[in-house]
């Protein structure tokens, strides 16, 4: 891990397994909602995406992740835990680039809070993505101004 919220390369099965293995100890939670963001082999004109290269402002990712978690916990009083792991570096099509896990006392807030967490990440995480195509050309994606 680059820091608590960033991992170099894809979010691997080992990382996911390690996070899921913690759930058993959360005996005050009745529901866990998980989101996996995956690199999609999009077609841009005639070029197909083979990978995305993510770059991140690591120290600001930590600041923004903590703001998101605090906001989610204050808006959803039933939420017990929010876990965010985003990729930095190259992630191939079909691999996971974002992992979000929200645990709550009950399923409704777990699911709603997970969805809102993903929305907040997309708007405020200082992460940039460069689509790398099968012909080895690339294009920067630009989505949100903070």
């Amino acid at each position, binding site marked *: 891990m680059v820091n608590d919220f960033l991992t170099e390369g894809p979010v691997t099965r080992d990382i996911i397994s390690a996070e899921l293995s913690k759930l058993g100890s959360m005996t005050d939670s009745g529901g866990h909602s998980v989101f996996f963001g995956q690199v999609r082999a999009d077609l841009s004109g005639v070029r197909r995406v083979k990978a995305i290269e993510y770059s991140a*402002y690591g120290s600001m990712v930590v600041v923004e992740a903590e703001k998101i978690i605090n906001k989610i916990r204050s808006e959803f009083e039933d939420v017990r835990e929010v876990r965010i792991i985003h990729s930095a570096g190259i992630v191939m099509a079909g691999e996971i680039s974002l992992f979000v896990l929200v645990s709550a006392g009950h399923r409704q807030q777990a699911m709603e809070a997970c969805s809102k967490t993903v929305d907040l*990440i997309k708007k405020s*995480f200082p*992460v*940039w993505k460069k689509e790398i195509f099968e012909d080895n050309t690339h294009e*920067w994606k630009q989505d949100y101004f903070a």
Partner: protein
Amino acid sequence: MNILVLFFGVLAEVTMTGSKHYTGVGSFGDLRLRVEDDFPEIAHYNYRIAVNNEIMNEEPVLKDGDEIAFMPPFAGG
């Protein structure tokens, strides 16, 4: 003032550097002029500024040792 400037995303690519130290900086306006002079390519791109990991919505007052990030639109998630 001594200021560290960081470039991210497409700006890191067009400037061909991730960072540059500036010395003798008087103000943010002064810094911006010097950065644009060193890297005229960035004038073609939209970007926001963060000072020490906080987005600035207006021109910041800088202090010695600040870290200024030039950030294009985010694309995380």
